[in-house]
């Protein structure tokens, strides 16, 4: 437990910053359970073999990194531009960084899966290229934040970039329908029934919940750290 006094208000804010966050530990256990279920208790695909089990990491990471993280970046960024609350900026920043990690996992596991199934780790086809483009946009969001000293300008400019990043997401989702490419169409995020056996679908849903839990647990820790960092910076300036 640490005590930080805010110079602008004169009040003392007590914040907890444990060495190991129990929510994060629970999230890691949930992901571990989902992975064990995927590797041990879920049958492999009849056509692709064992590599199809990468689905339970690749797709949940894509959902968190692309849909959830970019939505949080854009919504919190847009709200920041409106009400100028620094907490919104910190949430957007935290979601962007954690989303960047998830997007990196998507690109790497996708390349490994592609090497096995397509014979090549990378192809300049619409889905892969647009996902790589989003990865660069989120990376530029983080680099931009690091490069600007002024907190207000940093929050304002990165909020605009966060809103722009979200505009890419529907386009990336539709690439498999709009263009001919190697990447298959979604198995679950589509109208109609998912193209999976009941065991695979159950594991897929569990993996999605577990990775969503991990995403928010990481964002929570990242947000707490950013709050402490900003308060310390405010104290140093005072």
């Amino acid at each position: 437990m640490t005590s930080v006094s805010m110079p602008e208000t004169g009040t003392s804010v007590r914040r907890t910053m444990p060495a190991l966050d129990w929510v994060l530990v629970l999230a890691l256990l949930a992901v571990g359970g989902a992975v064990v279920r995927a590797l041990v208790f879920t049958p492999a695909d009849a056509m692709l073999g064992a590599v199809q089990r990468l689905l339970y990491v690749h797709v949940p990471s894509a959902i968190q990194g692309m849909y959830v993280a970019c939505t949080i970046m854009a919504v919190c960024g847009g709200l920041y531009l409106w009400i100028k609350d620094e907490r919104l900026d910190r949430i957007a920043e935290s979601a962007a960084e954690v989303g960047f990690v998830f997007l990196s996992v998507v690109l790497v596991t996708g390349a490994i899966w592609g090497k096995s199934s397509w014979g090549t780790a990378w192809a300049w086809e619409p889905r892969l290229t647009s996902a790589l483009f989003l990865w660069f946009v989120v990376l530029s969001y983080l680099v931009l934040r690091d490069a600007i000293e002024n907190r207000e300008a940093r929050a304002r400019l990165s909020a605009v970039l966060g809103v722009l990043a979200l505009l890419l997401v529907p386009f990336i989702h539709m690439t498999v329908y709009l263009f001919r490419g190697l990447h298959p169409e979604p198995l679950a995020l589509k109208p109609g029934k998912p193209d999976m056996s009941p065991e695979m679908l159950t594991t897929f849903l569990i993996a999605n919940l577990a990775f969503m839990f991990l995403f928010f647990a990481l964002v929570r820790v990242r947000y707490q750290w950013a709050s402490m960092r900003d308060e310390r910076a405010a104290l140093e300036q005072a």
Partner: protein
Amino acid sequence: MKLFSVSQASASVTTLRVEPAAESYAKMQGSLAESAPAPQRTGPPDTTYYMKLGYIVAGVIFFAYIVLLMRRVASVRKQS
């Protein structure tokens, strides 16, 4: 491969003796059976290596980020 052969035994009548197709096919099958590899295993391809590689790399990325986050948290705790 010669599937059909012309017999010149009765040149006066010029008859054609056609080797029975079944006999020729049996010979071909026999020669193929001698050189053919063992029948391949049916079922999905063995892609376990790629599955393991994918899970390990994903685990390393998540682990590295969590370590980075914990180091930041430890740094903040040390300053306070």
